[in-house]
Every structure is written in C-alpha cells, then in structure tokens.
C-alpha cells in the first residue's frame, strides 16, 4: 500500500511538472508569435529576450536580485491567502517599508549591523501595522479586506511620494529622491559586479521558515485550517479571529521587509516611485506558486527572467518592455484554468 502511494506521488509530481512545462511552452510560442508580429528584427529580439538575462554574470546577478523582494512579498501573500485573507495593498506596503528603512538609516548613520536590524524591524512594523489594520477592520466590522488594502495602499503611496519629494528630498540630485544611506548600511554584495547581495539569503530563509511554519507548526496548521474551511476550524476550537489578523500582519511585514531590503541591498535611497509594480508582481508570483512557499523561489526567478528578458529585448532591439506584461498575462490565463490543469494532470473528473 505504501508503495502504491509513493508511486502515485511521483506520478503526480511528473505530471504536474509536465503540466507546467506545457503551459510555459504555450506561452513561449505566443511570445515568439507576438515578437514576429511587432518587431522588424524578430530574430534579434527573440535572441535578446531569451539569452539576454544569461549573457553575463552581471545580468544573471541582477536578475536574481530583482527576484528577491518579489519572493519575500510572495511569501507574505501566500500566508495571507492560505488563511483566506486578501492583501492587494502590496504596492503601498513595499513603498512604505522602503521609506521607513531609509529614514532610520539616515537618522542613525554609522550604526552598522545594529542599524540595519533596527531599520528592517521598523519597516516591518510600519507595513505590518497597515495590513493589520485591514485585517482588524474585517474581523471587527466585516469590512472587505480587498477594498481596504487597496485604498490604504493608494493613500500610503501618495504620503510616501510627499515625504520623498519634500521633507526627505535630496536637493543635490535631479531625481526626486531621498539622500543615499550611509555605506555601513549597504548589504554585502555576493556576486560582483552585479547587485546581488545577501538579501537573497534572507529571502531563502523566509521561504524555508514559511514552509516550516505552514506545515510543521501548530499555528501554521491552524492557519491552513481556517483558510480551507473556516466553519470546520471553528468547530475544532481554532480562534478564527486571530487568523483574520495574524496572517495580514505577517504579509504586511514581509512586504515591508521586501521594500527595506531593496533599499539596503540595491537602491540605497528611496527614489520616487521606484517600487511601482513590486507589490502586484509579488502577488502574481504567489499566484503562480499557488501559495506554496517551496514553489515561490522558482516562480519568482521565472518572473524575474521574463522581466529581465523584456528589458534586454527592449535594450537590444525594437521591442517594448511591456511585452513582459503580455507574456505574464497569458501565463496567468493558462495557469489559473482548472480545466487545463486537469488535462495536464491527466485527471478526467474531480
């Protein structure tokens, strides 16, 4: 009996791999078709799209570096979604986390590692609180978290925009940006000359911890119970109210962390609008990963690859960057269809 089961798990794995490959293949075909349609030099465009991200260590490192905040944000989203909560305010929470880190770093120059920890903690606290508010509003007054996270995020973006443009603006640059943080706050680069830094390790740790938390801890188990069937969780004595708030806090905090690490590792200053898209993209990464922490790493890398490919194609040929959106959208349409999935997995009915 055990043997049969193992075989079926292996078979399931092979089939789902096959399914994902089929979807990737299909979207690659669509991408190539789109490039032929839009580009005057399609072969150059295709080559630079697919090979560009791997053309040098520099390119590879930067691609992975871009995946880092996405992965961290996606871990948070996975926790929120697995518990039946919704947080689409990532844009604001990432941006706020970035600004808070910058402010702390500017306020405490030369604090080194301690300063980094304080800055990260502060950004997680602020972004976490914002998401907690949405969670609490839903728990207490049944206010749709979908709507409050979105509206709060828009307000925060404007507030941060203001902070960057006025109180904290660096008058010596042409950009609307804060001053650069002290070099003692820069995270260690691990793949020079690229910008890949030890934030990658933090992202990996986040994924690992989230995986263990979800599948190996009582709290994680209860969180999944609430997400799967809240009625059942209540029946089994789980305090379901806690799980309307805690996962929101965690997802907000992780968004904040993602933004903070992007500052300390990559940007070193909050530039107006620098994180635009990060929140949505992290949500998309989590969706591709189907809210499974282990799948977030490949999903984030894949996402970053398409992004880098589109950038490279834009740089070396006549294709616009937005082609990445099209590819991503097509993948979403395909990946979210449970019919296609079932065909890929070879199951006839459920």
């Amino acid at each position, binding site marked *: 009996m055990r043997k049969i089961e193992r075989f079926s798990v292996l078979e399931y794995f092979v089939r789902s791999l096959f399914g994902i490959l089929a979807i990737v293949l299909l979207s690659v075909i669509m991408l190539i078709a789109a490039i032929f349609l839009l580009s005057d030099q399609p072969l150059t465009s295709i080559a630079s799209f697919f090979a560009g991200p791997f053309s040098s260590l520099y390119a590879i490192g930067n691609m992975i570096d871009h995946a880092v905040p996405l992965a961290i944000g996606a871990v948070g989203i996975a926790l929120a979604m697995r518990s039946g909560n919704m947080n689409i305010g990532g844009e604001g929470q990432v941006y706020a986390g970035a600004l808070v880190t910058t402010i702390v770093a500017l306020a405490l120059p030369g604090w080194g590692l301690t300063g980094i920890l304080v800055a990260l903690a502060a950004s997680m606290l602020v972004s976490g609180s914002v998401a907690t508010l949405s969670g609490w509003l839903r728990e207490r007054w049944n206010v749709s978290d979908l709507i409050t996270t979105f509206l709060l995020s828009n307000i925060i973006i404007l507030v941060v925009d203001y902070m960057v443009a006025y109180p904290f603006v660096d008058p010596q640059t042409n950009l609307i940006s804060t001053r650069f943080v002290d070099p003692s706050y820069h995270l260690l680069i691990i793949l020079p000359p690229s910008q890949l830094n030890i934030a990658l390790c933090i992202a990996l740790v986040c994924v690992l911890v989230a995986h*263990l938390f979800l599948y*190996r*801890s*009582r709290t994680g188990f209860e969180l999944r119970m609430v997400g799967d*069937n809240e009625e*059942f969780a209540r*029946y089994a004595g789980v305090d379901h109210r806690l799980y309307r708030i805690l996962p929101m806090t965690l997802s907000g905090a992780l968004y904040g962390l993602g933004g903070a690490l992007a500052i300390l590792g990559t940007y070193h200053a909050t530039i107006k609008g620098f994180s635009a898209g990060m929140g949505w993209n992290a949500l998309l990464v989590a969706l591709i990963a189907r809210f499974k922490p282990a799948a977030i790493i490949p999903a984030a890398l894949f996402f970053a690859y398409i992004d880098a490919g589109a950038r490279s194609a834009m740089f070396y040929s006549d294709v616009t960057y937005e082609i990445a959106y099209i590819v991503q959208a097509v993948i979403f349409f395909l990946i979210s269809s449970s019919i296609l999935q079932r065909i890929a997995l070879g199951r006839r009915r459920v």
Partner: protein
Amino acid sequence: MTAAVRMKSITKIYPETQKRANDQVDFTLLPAEILSLAGENGAGKSTLMKILYGLISCDSGEILVHGQPFAHPSPIEAGKRGIGMVHQHFMLVEEFTVTENVVLGEESTAPTGLLDRRQNRQRVAALIEKHHFSLSPDDRVMSLSVGQKQQVEILKMLMRDVNILILDEPTSVLTQLEIDSLFTTLRKLQSHGVSIILITHKLHEIKNISDRVAVMREGRMVGVYETAEVSEEDIARAMMGDEGLSVVRKERRQLNLDPVLSVAHLSLIRHNQDHPLLDDISFTVHPGEILGCAAISGNGLGQLESVLLGNLPVSSGEILYHDEVLTSVHHTATTRKRGIPFVPSDRLFTGCSLSAKVSDNVIATSRKRFFPPFNVSRKEIESYTSHLIETYGISATPSAPIGTLSGGGIQKVILAREIERIRDLIICCEPTWGLDVNSTAFIHRQIVQLRNDGVGVLLISSNIDEILALADRLLVFSRGSVSARFSASQMASLTKEELSPFLLGKKRMEVEGA
C-alpha cells in the same frame, strides 16, 4: 393505457465512490396516480429521480415518457415533456417576490420587450386563487414560512403545465398543518390528471396519500405494492430488509454517577420568530448512558446543536461540563475550546475540511498533541492516521483528500477522530444521516460500545428508529421545547406509535426532571 413514465433497467455508478446507486432498476408511473418512492437514506431513490429529471445521466437503461423515448434527459428537456421537480432544498431566489420566482424562465413580456409586470402578477394571482394557496404574489420569498415556500415551488411547476411532478422529501420540514394542506393540493392536482411521485421514507404518509408505493433498498427496486393492500410494517420490512430494526442490542446498566453534562433552563429567543427557538430546555447526561434527543427536523434540534457548538449565543440558561460553565448568556463557544468530542450533523462542511488530507483532518481536533507547538516530522501524524484507518476499517490512505472518500468513509474518519479523544462525554448529531446500512450499523455499534465503556453520550437525531434502538433515556422536542421525557424503564417498551403524538406536538407530557 400508456404509462406516464417507464424506466427500464436503470444503472448508475458514481465514479467517485464506485457505489452502485441504482442497479438495474425498473420503474413505472401510471397516469394520474400518486406514487410513493420509499426507501432509507441512500437507497437510491433520489438518484433515480435525478436521472428522470435529467440532472444526472445514467450509465445504462432506457426511459419512456408517455410512451415516447426520452433519450437525452436534461432539465430543459424534462420541462418540455412536462416533468417538474420540487427539490428538498428549495430552488428559490429569496430576494425575489413570489411572482418573480414563479414566472422565472416563463416571463410574459410586453411588445416593448420589457416585462409585463401586471400580466405576470395576474397569472400568478390566478394560479394562487385556483389552488387556494395562502400566498400573496408580491411577498418576498425570504419573508415566507417553509410551507409557503414549498407552495411557491409547486406554483412554479404548475406555471409550467407539468403533468409529472416529482417531490423530493416534501414533508421533511413542514408542520402537520402544512402537510395536510400539501396533501390536499396533491390530491387536487391528481384529479386534474397530474401524475405525482413522492420521494419519502415516512410510512404513515405513504399510507395516507399514495395509491401505490415503490420500495428501494441499496440501489435496487425491491417491490411495488398497491398501498391499500400492505401495512406500514410490510413497507418497513421491505425498506429495511431482513435485519430490520434490531441494529444493536441494548444492555441496561444501572449507574448513578454525577452528570458529565448538564443543561439548565436553556432558552434561545429571536425577535423575528413567533415562538422561542429553544424554550427552557433542561437535561443531564450521565456516564455510561445514551441520552437521546429526538424531533422532527425544524423543531429545535438544529438550534440545540448550534448552541452546543457555540455558534449561537443563548438568551438564558447555561451548559455545564461537570462543574465548569461552558456556555451561558455571557459565554459562547467554549464547548469547542474545552475540546469535548463532537460529531456534527453537517459532516461535509462543519465536520471536516474536504480539500485537506485525511491525516490533517484526523489531527485537526488534537493539534496540541501533534504540534507541541512544532513538529518537524510528519511521520507520527501519518502513522497515527494509518493506525486509525486500520482500527476503524476505513478504506482510505492518509494523504488522500478526505473529499475523495464516500459519505460513510468521511463519517467514520470523523467518528474515529472524536472517539480517540474521549474522556467521559461525546455529543453525536445525526450520526448516520444519509449513510448506507453497513456504515450505519458500524456507527451504532461504536456508540453502544462507548456507552458500555462508561462514556456519557448525547445523541441528537431526527431518525426515530435510531433513537429507539440506541437511547437509554429520551427527550422529545417539539416547537423548540421538550414535549416528552422517557426514563430508562419506559424506553424498554416504547414504540414509534406512542412517540409520534409527542413528536408532532399533539401531546405534551408535564413531567419535571429527567
């Protein structure tokens, strides 16, 4: 005379459970007759009727309607052939008015293309008038009583000129008055030439209303009788087979220990209800006994369960576990936090998480044991689940989603899970509802075994046979209050006939204490 419906050797196997829901079933409905389709829960009668109405397709067999082959049934096709079905769970849009519901799909429109609201209303009003229903065409369905909602369902069918009407358990939620009026309506429809199929398992109703009765058991048609020629006992025997009512043998035990569970003066009042949902309920459960709570559904058992689960705050009274207050006016939900084993009536949505693994469902109510608070290995969880699966003879693997199991399998997992944590009390609500004979017998054996081991069992069930077979003492509920109490000595000779006036609320017993 051609039959209204003829179904020949219908076979249906559900792919999910591989259960033969219908096995070579032959079925005939004559014109203008009222036929009862009887059988226990899970006998296959609903499946047969869903096939006729086109909601599901059969694997093999042939259907003739008024002598014409009915090859590809679907609800639309069924409607065109004059077949209508009133479902057990009403298919009504609560937010719409009676008129809107009745004409839905058959709306009259003015030449402009807009709805002709006056004409729609008149059509419905005329129909109401003709059948003497107590409805107004402008009422919103959500404000109606259950009986009225059923009338709306029947109106929907009448609007479509059905001549074959299927009613699925139509009386299960009705009061006696409403049942009487339903039966009057059905007889009148019959006199207009409508053939009626009544899916039911209530014997006295079968005798009362139908011309013929077709009995199903375990997916087969076991007999068709002229109702006048058979007694209720005959029908019951046909429904239940040879093993009959004696599912388990009871051994009386004399125990005078302190109660494990006490419920004192519990009331549940809602301002939009004309009578209390629960009215001054008091009882105790002692170790080593099964206390039965019986009622026809809709008479307070559901509310009692909700209160015990902590889903509804009580208006007065309290619930004690030994001396500890679990639920009172200021407290709800502590029953579950206290971890009292509980088998809920809604096993699919309250009792388990369908998409989660069997193993996760098994440990869901003993989380502290398996996650103290971390557990890096899942081996312990898997082996514990395998152990339960083996002990309770469940056909499943630990890592399969529980939703892939049969209803009986799911209930066994739930029961096994709860039994494993029993100290001295378990609450079981409708533990065998809709299960096949074998699973039912298994669960009954388990419950009696628990009682013999000294556990206090609170058995809440609307299945009267089950209550009579299992309970040591009995409380009968009617309209939210206790209409009768039977002590252990009275239980020995209690029959269904003696019980039914209390169930129906026609008689009340004025006894204090239990």
